[in-house]
């Protein structure tokens, strides 16, 4: 049945997010955390959302998942459509629960995202009982199978243990097992390997790729690590101050970077490619205050190529080629400035 459904909707992406805007009421005023984010992701594809702390990447996916507490949060505009059906503000689509069943999610800190008073096996079994109507016994058997799928050794014994008995890497595997228990079509991974060592990170990333190949699920990967992006992503959305500033395939974003912020990020980190050695170039200053978002481009005060218009008016997304786009006035037809470090439409 699932295949038939996919056939009907072929052509429309699995998930499309358009112009999402989210704000929060706080004692200090209203924070506009997400200010118009659009992206889409297809079956079997990995979209990486990359950006620094406070850029709104986590709030974006939490809104899609319906995890934003309202109040104080508020989705003021935008849509998110799963196979063409609106899911913002809803908990089911086509009779299926969105959270857990259609979209699974794993978090940065597995230790605090799991219930310390329940065994790992019971926690994985829980969504199966809720979403799929399994009996307790069947659900637990399935939980053991899922733990094996996530390559946890001695799964049967481990299923009866509590989170504190697991290492960080093993907990993240258990989280993946839980997120995939109801065979979601999308897995959202919010900084899944940030708390892990590089060796364990490599294991978890390998596991995610392997499971994606098997199940054909889409992955939305949130990270600040460009190395992880390069390894995992088909598509990349670079976020800054609540907006997507550059969007395109991994090759576009890495090799044909068109937004000054993307270039800034690359220049701020060391590379191990002997041909591309460079001095670290920090991005001076800090991101804008989203209590009072700037009238113009959010990156303008830190941008080495800023022009007068940048501080006055919001830049629109400019298509470069394919679906590679950048929100930057430099790409406007009337802009005379063409910095060498950036990629421009007419350059190829």
């Amino acid at each position, binding site marked *: 049945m699932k295949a038939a459904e996919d056939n009907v909707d072929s052509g429309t992406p699995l998930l499309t997010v358009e112009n999402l805007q989210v704000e929060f009421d706080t004692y200090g005023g209203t924070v506009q955390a997400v200010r118009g984010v659009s992206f889409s992701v297809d079956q079997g594809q990995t979209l990486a959302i990359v950006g620094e702390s406070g850029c709104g990447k986590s709030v974006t996916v939490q809104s899609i998942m319906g995890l934003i507490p309202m109040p104080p949060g508020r989705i003021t505009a935008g849509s998110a459509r799963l196979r063409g059906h609106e899911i913002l503000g809803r908990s089911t689509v086509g009779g299926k629960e969105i959270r857990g069943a259609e979209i699974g999610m794993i978090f940065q800190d597995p230790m605090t995202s799991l219930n310390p008073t329940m065994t790992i096996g019971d926690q994985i079994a829980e969504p199966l009982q809720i979403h799929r109507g399994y009996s307790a016994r069947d659900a637990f058997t399935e939980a053991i199978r899922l733990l094996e799928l996530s390559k946890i050794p001695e799964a049967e014994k481990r299923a009866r243990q509590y989170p504190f008995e697991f290492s960080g890497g093993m907990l993240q595997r258990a989280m993946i097992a839980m997120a995939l228990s109801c065979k979601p079509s999308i897995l959202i991974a919010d900084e899944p390997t940030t708390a892990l060592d590089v060796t364990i990170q490599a294991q978890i990333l390998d596991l995610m790729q392997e499971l994606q190949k098997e199940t054909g699920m889409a992955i939305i990967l949130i990270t600040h690590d460009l190395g992880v992006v390069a390894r995992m992503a088909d598509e990349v959305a670079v976020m800054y101050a609540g907006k997507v500033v550059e969007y395109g395939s991994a090759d576009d974003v890495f090799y044909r970077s068109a937004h000054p912020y993307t270039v800034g990020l690359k220049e701020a980190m060391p590379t191990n490619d002997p041909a591309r050695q460079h001095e*670290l170039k920090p991005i001076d200053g800090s991101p804008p205050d989203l209590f009072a978002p700037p009238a113009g481009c959010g990156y303008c005060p830190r941008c080495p190529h800023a022009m007068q218009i940048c501080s006055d008016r919001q830049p629109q997304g400019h298509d470069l080629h394919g679906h590679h786009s950048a929100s930057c006035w430099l790409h406007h037809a009337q802009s005379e400035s063409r910095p060498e470090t950036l990629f421009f439409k007419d350059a190829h």
Partner: protein
Amino acid sequence: MGDLIEARKLTRFFDMGGNQRVHAVDKVSLTIGETEIVGLVGESGSGKSTFGKTLLGLHDKTDGEVIFRGESLPQKYRPADFQKLATKMQMIFQDPYSSLNPRMTVGEIIGEGLRLHFSLSPSDVKDQVVDWLEKVGLQADHMSRYPHEFSGGQRQRIGIARALILEPEFVVCDEPISALDVSVQAQVINLLGELKETMGLTLLFIAHDLSMVRYVSDRMAVMYLGSLVELGKADEVYFNPKHPYTEVLIGSNPEPDPNLEKGRASTSIQGEIPSPVNVPSGCRFANRCPKVLDVCREKTPELIPVKDEDRLVACHLVS
């Protein structure tokens, strides 16, 4: 370039009660030359931070010796030892949130060392604090503010000013950038680099970001489960690792380059770093090592020089 500080078979165990001991740092020998930057890498639990702290005397030594400018430092520091050595050695901590006292103003935090160690008038202390705030890229009027008013990057600058105002010769930087965003990491690294040049500092740079350690360090030391497994010039260790563990560690480090990443075979190893409680005899990496030999499980390999190379490796395969 003379030697500034030397660890000789430095050992630090933690008793856990019963017969259990955590072998956090086990016979680590490392010499750091004047104005040199040595990067120390390894997974969490490998003993990097404990080594740094034991080197400074923040932990008592279980065994072994630390020699600073030819003088052997005491096994266990007394208050007078701290008083004497605090002006020579300092530490920059990982977490800029928990390492600054929230009830002290920034001026008090940065100036505290001066007040304790030198008999300066309050106005002299204030002048130096202002001077240092400017050196680390903050402003004089930040003095009267509290740590919570600053961002992570700014707090790390405060931590740097606090450590360096005493003009120490040797500084242990324990993961100084891992809590910071990429753009801010570069700011802090460049600041440390400038200060190192102008003050002639010697640094032990502890981090798990391999690319950053390679960029920053003259030499790179790799630690696994309490012992040093490889030591050599940073670039050489990174691009031509000799120890199987170093190879795995570097092979797992994702590069910000899709072509490189997609063409790369997966070098990830199974398993995780074992518990440092009552470690087995033989090579500690043996049960995860892809190239393990029989001898590895019986005899502990020594950290010895590789023939014709400026490199130390603790592996039976190499010797």
